[in-house]
């Protein structure tokens, strides 16, 4: 069941974890985790609450000591060289790790000074990062008055001050609204474009798909799957198009019409709950399917697409339910777009 990539021969691995174990009493938060992050890429660590994602990040950022196993980040051993390691990493957690009582600028200036920048350099870097993260206007306001998204952006800015080569993002968009989430994603993409290696933990398949090139799925402290995002998606299945005809009597007729087109995967359509579910492998298929249904004169009452939820991913990969049921990702935005296209 477990698939572990071996270390690439060219040695461009920024993070190497082997057999990492961390127990809290009887709870095995990490139960022998292996993973690699290639330099300059994003590894998504996907898993439900309590899977061990945060424990993993805390071990790799020297906040806790593992009980067994090894982890080497940017060439430094997590257990034996924590001081050197701290110079090369940045951490943005689920909870803003900035001082709420201080102004945004003061937070960044303080971190600059703690990273041994001169006063002038720390000042310049604080200004520069506030500008980049669109926080210049809020620079002098205490973080307590910031919105959730502003806090998360400040947190990212704080992690960037030391120009880390490896950045840990622990559920960076949990609790954010969709618009703010997109802003955070855009910033992360920008950092990666600048050559930062990112280890990202997330509960959302969509986030992993947006940001990561490779994925490690963990559950109950163990790696249950790993590989390129595209490979995993191929195993799990991509998006599903759901269609409800105005007249539910037309369901089977619709399914037959689609299967006759010979489009890849469309033959695997299923009918349940008064809806037709069509597997979609590429965007063109969406247009083709909707165009065809329109041309045949079917009346459509509802249309939408959804990505596999974390639970569907687990089900597809392991044939088991994850340790915690997570919500599926449903896209109202996609709904609206398709309705427009169909009309």
């Amino acid at each position, binding site marked *: 069941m477990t698939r572990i990539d071996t270390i690439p021969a060219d040695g461009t691995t920024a993070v190497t974890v082997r057999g990492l174990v961390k127990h809290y009493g009887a709870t095995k938060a990490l139960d022998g985790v292996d993973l690699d992050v290639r330099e300059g890429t994003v590894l998504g660590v996907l898993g439900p609450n309590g899977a061990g994602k945060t424990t993993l990040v805390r071990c790799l*950022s020297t906040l806790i000591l593992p009980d067994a196993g090894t982890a080497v980040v940017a060439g430094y051993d997590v257990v034996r060289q924590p001081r050197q390691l701290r110079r090369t990493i940045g951490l943005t957690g689920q909870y803003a790790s900035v001082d709420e009582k201080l102004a945004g600028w003061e937070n960044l200036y303080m971190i600059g000074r703690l990273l041994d920048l001169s006063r002038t350099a720390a000042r310049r870097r604080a200004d520069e990062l506030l500008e980049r993260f669109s926080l210049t206007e809020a620079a002098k306001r205490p973080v307590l008055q910031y919105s959730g998204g502003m806090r998360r952006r400040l947190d990212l800015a704080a992690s960037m001050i030391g120009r880390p080569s490896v950045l840990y993002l622990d559920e960076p968009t949990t609790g954010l609204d969709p618009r703010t989430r997109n802003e955070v994603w855009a910033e992360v993409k920008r950092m990666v474009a600048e050559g930062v290696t990112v280890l990202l933990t997330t509960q959302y398949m969509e986030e992993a798909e947006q940001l990561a090139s490779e994925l490690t799925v963990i559950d109950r402290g163990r790696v249950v799957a790993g590989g390129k995002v595209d490979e995993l998606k191929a195993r799990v299945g991509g998006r599903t198009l759901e269609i409800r005809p105005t007249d539910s009597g037309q369901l089977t007729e619709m399914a037959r019409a689609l299967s006759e087109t010979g489009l890849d995967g469309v033959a695997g359509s299923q009918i349940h709950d008064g809806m037709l579910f069509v597997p979609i492998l590429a965007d063109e298929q969406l247009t083709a399917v909707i165009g065809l249904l329109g041309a045949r004169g079917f009346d459509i009452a509802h249309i939408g697409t959804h990505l596999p939820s974390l639970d569907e991913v687990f089900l597809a990969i392991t044939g088991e339910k994850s340790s915690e049921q997570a919500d599926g990702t449903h896209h109202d935005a996609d709904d609206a777009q398709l309705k427009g296209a169909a009309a």
Partner: protein
Amino acid sequence: MSTATTTKTAELPEPTPPSTTRTGKSGPAVADEGRIGVRANLRHIGALARRNALQIKQDPESMFDVLLMPIVFTLLFVFVFGGAVAGKGNQSEYVSYLVPGLMAMMGLNVSMAVGSGINEDFQKGVMDRFRTMPIARSSVLIAKIVVEIGRMMIAFAILLIVGFILGLSIETSALEVLAAIGLSLLFGASLMWIFILIGLSVKTAQAVQGVGIVVLMPLQFGSSIFTPPTTMPGWLQTFTDYNPLSNLADAARGLFIGGPVAHDLLMTLAWSAVITLATAPIAVAKFRKKT
């Protein structure tokens, strides 16, 4: 896990020499092993102390203890107990007895705040940030102590002003008064390590206050701060004799109004050293390990 400590260093697949794999694109040059030099350490303490001071600016109410305690306690003790202790109409005589001793009490109360402050920091994510940075972990604690000493100095200044208004008389020189203040600050700083330790051990900031009060009340009142112990029962006199707050109060009093101070001064210095040496290493170790 019994295997915990034995396995973690045993099996590194291929020990990579950091100098070759490290890209070296971030941060200024540092000494080998990532040790933090004295100057860098002072800079870190400075940056963190600035943070603590800015927190006060944002939350001025946190200064109430320092600003009001010296006024309220001095007025209360002088006018409620002063007559009974020194005789009716002799309140000003009691002021000169009380005020040097009150420095010991203020020091104790202010130092308690450092415990709840540390505890609060741990409830917030900011401590994770500090602990993933290349700074000595003790610098976070020392910065806190530096700012609390500053707060203590403000409390002492207010105490002396109130004292002078109520008739405090100093029979010695400015040098000796400064020595008394310095001694009180030193002792207060050593107490902070105890409260840091408590702050790191209990779950909430309120619990720090609770534990603190239980320890503070008997120590404060079972001392020579408020009255000379001569009227106390024998067993209590023994307690007050060994109470470090009595030593500090008596030493400060001697330095304000004259009289023999050598014994109490040395005792206070010894107490400060013992408390610091006994609790600071434990507090720093606990701080490092806390998750």
